[in-house]
């Protein structure tokens, strides 16, 4: 044992542990921990690894379903998509590192989420990302956008996994804390999924991948604290990505997974060797002994503390079947990867580390997981905001100008500048991607005629206005987007980005959003199978808008029957599914035209969502529609413009069928879809809707080269498209 360390309250505090947490450590060990042990407790009990503020609330989520093979608790969620195929997916945040060092922060975010997926036996087949930046005019925004986008592309493009979609928002609430949430979707055989629980005693533990360096030490602790003006000093804790090694790791691991050599496998993510070894041991109920002298090291004289807390990227830990060591060595050496047998499983239930022939850590594993803090933090519900009637909201006198302003506003403008830097086509199974501006990306299952649909969504201004309704809306919008392409929505992953949970009003947002999300999951039978929580997204006491990003996955069983928004044809009739009340509270119209962010957000009627969505999906399956688009930000007018751009057709809107004109065109009522329907299908589409109790209204026609609405706007399609495309390139090329 290392010499008894002299722990001071300062050392304990520097490790982010509270006095009461330290008391528990003393109690369980029956002695003072040494520095290595303290470091291990510190990262394992950090918010990032232990979910100490969120665990009890996450437990409320629906996590089971007919197609769920593995829910939360493993590296990623696993769902069944028939024919022996499984989809493995997860979304994860890399917010803090991306703010400090945008290129590497975003790149390693992509690398980390891919490892979570291929660790379980899946070949990654698609990447998505949900990004939130500060105000476009903020001095740091351009640099962050360009670094984050280059980092995401630099990693995903090299590894050769298509980045097929995502979303990008700008809001002043993210000036000091951007959000970079990356999602990966992989394909595995349902009977060849790999898990992290170590089994057996005396089984060899292999380390594979990059060497361990001094990068990223205490990254998990950093991700569990607020920022202040000195945050730039945290730069050394950001990891550096090596996509080349990641690509070799994917190929080597998938090759080894075709044999029966692997008992358990876990990637080294946050808290590196510490959390990977402890999680494997804890899940399998075994002990682990590691000889740190065997760990491949990038620099000389690394201490045990540094090795255990390093977050060097592209590393995996596995328990290998005894007798298969040579097989594993051969495959990793073929791929020119560092590989070493660094330890073995034991029956002690303890984590024992040896370094320079000395025992430098000897702690029981169970308390690290079982006794991890689990706080019921106080939370208060925000005051309900008043419902604003459209008739009380100023109507623009210049609809042409209003439409132009909305279509060139930061959240609506084309993000081509971003997605043209991502390889969207590699693997040649991309059916639809950001390229068409559609609701969900569509990726074919290689060699088959079925596909997965993938989307990410969140409307933070709704969640801020009403966490419960906003939480419902995030889930409902993903469900709606998957429906728009004709997919059966199956399950979601989530990335819950919030401020400091020690503040009751932030905790209130968190609890409200989860309850709303869960309500929607249950209404749609649409479980949560994986996800992560990112708290402390605050700078100088200013929290981000609550942003529970949701990634949804669905199945298109037959690629002869899907839809996009590209297919509208001249002469088609526009049919609006769903009721319009003209809801302008918390809308884009309100923020962009009137510079107001007040009012209650649109309520989400989940049974109506289901009714309307199921009908739209049925129409797609019966090939009754040429194009489908959901109504969200900016309402009917924006949906019509986006369909017009993608289909290269003008649109003429009639109406208002009811209510105020600005509410009709820009209102953001939920559960609505815009359909382009061939003339001779209009009657059956509308009359069948009526028999099902679905609201279906004829709202216009497709054709020509203008975007028009009765008594409101009339602008050239090309002019509007050019303006919509120009906003982001202009921002990025302009002076700061």
């Amino acid at each position: 044992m290392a010499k008894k360390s002299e722990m001071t309250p300062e050392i304990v505090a520097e490790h982010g542990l509270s006095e009461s947490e330290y008391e528990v450590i003393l109690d369980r060990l029956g002695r003072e921990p040494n520095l290595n042990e303290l470091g291990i407790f510190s990262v394992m009990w950090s918010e990032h690894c232990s979910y100490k503020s969120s665990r009890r609330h996450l437990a409320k989520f629906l996590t089971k379903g007919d197609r769920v093979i593995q829910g939360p608790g493993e590296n990623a969620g696993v769902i069944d998509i028939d024919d022996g195929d499984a989809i493995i997916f997860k979304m994860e945040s890399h917010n803090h590192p991306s703010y400090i060092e945008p290129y590497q922060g975003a790149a390693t975010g992509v690398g980390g989420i891919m490892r979570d997926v291929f660790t379980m036996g899946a070949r990654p087949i698609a990447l998505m990302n949900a990004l939130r930046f500060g105000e476009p005019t903020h001095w740091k925004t351009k640099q962050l956008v360009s670094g984050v986008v280059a980092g995401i592309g630099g990693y995903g493009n090299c590894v050769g996994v298509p980045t097929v979609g995502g979303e990008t928002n700008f809001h002043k609430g993210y000036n000091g804390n951007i959000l970079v949430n990356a999602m990966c979707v992989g394909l595995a055989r349902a009977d060849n999924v790999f898990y992290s629980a170590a089994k057996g005693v005396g089984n060899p533990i292999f380390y594979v991948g990059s060497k361990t360096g001094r990068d990223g030490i205490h990254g998990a602790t950093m991700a569990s604290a607020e920022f202040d003006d000195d945050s730039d000093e945290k730069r050394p804790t950001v990891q550096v990505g090596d996509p080349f090694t990641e690509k070799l790791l994917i190929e080597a691991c998938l090759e080894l997974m075709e044999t029966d050599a692997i008992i358990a496998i876990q990637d080294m993510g946050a808290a590196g060797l510490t959390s990977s070894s402890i999680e494997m041991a804890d899940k399998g109920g075994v002990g682990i002994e590691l000889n740190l002298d065997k760990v491949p090291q990038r620099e000389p004289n690394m201490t045990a503390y540094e090795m255990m807390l390093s977050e060097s990227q592209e590393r995996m830990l596995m328990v290998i079947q005894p007798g298969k060591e040579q097989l594993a060595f051969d495959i990793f050496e073929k791929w020119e990867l560092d590989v070493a047998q660094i330890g073995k499983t034991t029956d002690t239930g303890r984590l024992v580390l040896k370094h320079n022939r000395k025992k430098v850590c000897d702690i029981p594993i169970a308390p690290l997981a079982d006794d991890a803090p689990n706080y019921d933090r106080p939370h208060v519900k925000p005051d309900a905001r008043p419902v604003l009637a459209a008739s009380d909201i100023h109507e623009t006198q210049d609809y042409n100008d209003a439409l132009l302003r909305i279509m060139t506003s930061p959240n609506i403008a084309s993000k081509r500048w971003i997605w043209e830097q991502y390889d969207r086509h590699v693997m040649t199974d991309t059916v639809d991607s950001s390229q068409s501006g559609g609701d969900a990306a569509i990726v074919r299952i290689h060699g088959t005629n079925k596909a997965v649909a993938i989307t990410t969504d969140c409307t933070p201004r709704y969640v801020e206005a009403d966490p419960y309704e906003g939480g419902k809306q995030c889930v409902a919008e993903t469900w709606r987007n998957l429906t728009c392409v004709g997919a059966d929505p199956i399950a979601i992953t989530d990335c819950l980005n919030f401020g400091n949970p020690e503040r009751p009003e932030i905790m209130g947002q968190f609890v409200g959003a989860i309850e709303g999300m869960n309500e929607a999951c249950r209404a749609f039978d649409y479980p949560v199978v994986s996800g992560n929580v990112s708290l402390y997204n605050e700078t100088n006491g200013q929290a981000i808008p609550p942003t529970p990003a949701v990634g949804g996955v669905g199945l298109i069983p037959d690629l002869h029957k899907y839809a996009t928004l590209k297919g509208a044809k001249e002469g088609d009739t526009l049919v609006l599914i769903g009721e319009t009340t003209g809801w302008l509270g918390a809308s884009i119209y309100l923020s962009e035209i009137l510079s107001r962010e007040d009012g209650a957000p649109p309520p989400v009627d989940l049974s109506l969502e289901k009714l309307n969505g199921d009908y739209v999906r049925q129409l797609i399956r019966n090939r009754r529609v040429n194009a489908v688009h959901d109504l969200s930000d900016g309402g009917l007018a924006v949906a019509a413009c986006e369909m017009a751009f993608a289909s290269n057709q003008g649109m003429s809107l009639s109406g208002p069928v009811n209510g105020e004109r600005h509410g009709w065109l820009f209102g953001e009522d939920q559960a609505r879809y815009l359909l382009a329907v061939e003339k001779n299908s209009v009657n059956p589409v509308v009359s069948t809707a009526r028999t099902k109790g679905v609201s279906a209204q004829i709202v216009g026609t497709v054709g020509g080269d203008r975007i028009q609405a009765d008594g409101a706007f009339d602008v050239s399609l090309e002019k509007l498209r050019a303006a919509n495309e120009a906003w982001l390139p202009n921002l990025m090329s302009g002076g700061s």
Partner: protein
Amino acid sequence: MQTAVIRFPASNCDRDAAVALEKVTGRKPLMVWHRETELPAGVGFVVMPGGFSYGDYLRAGAIASRSPIVRDIKAKSKRGLAVAGFCNGFQILTEAGMLPGALMRNKNLKFVCRPERLKVESSNSRFTQKYDAKSEVTFPVAHHDGNYFADKDVLSRIEKGGQVLFRYAENPNGSLNDIAGIVNEGGNVFGMMPHPERAIDPMHGGTDGLDLFKSILETI
């Protein structure tokens, strides 16, 4: 017809190339590891696939061009073996000295991925004989280093020799003379930055790439 796709560490369009070859020949190509010293007997056409061999960590294609298998392919190409390189494969062929010129970083310094309209400059070649000369095709591009450069003499020689087979309609990367694809003097080694293997299925948005594979395979 037996074909082969070379796999380098971090090739990532190797499977895509194999799918295209199988679609056209009806036969799976051989996947040849870069450390092999000799092509298997009977291979009539070799594809150097796209990707980021060795992470593009030196110059794109530079390390891969020194692989054992490339030495053998280069020797055999001098005796007439048909070889095509797409994207990273094109970069490897220029680095190996099997095609003239070099691929530099894109002019705007950014990775670019988009469907690109190309003009077929000549149908008088083994790689383009099935296209109409001066017709337009669309292949996707996806690269960071696709900016074709050659010195004045080389440029004038390949232009005069009819070695430029494809030009960009809207140059995405700053390539001299809008050059997208070239062939060697012998007419048996071809490289292009765009991806014909990503345009072989209506689901890709078009099938313009098929004729490129058909063109060369018919001559072997």
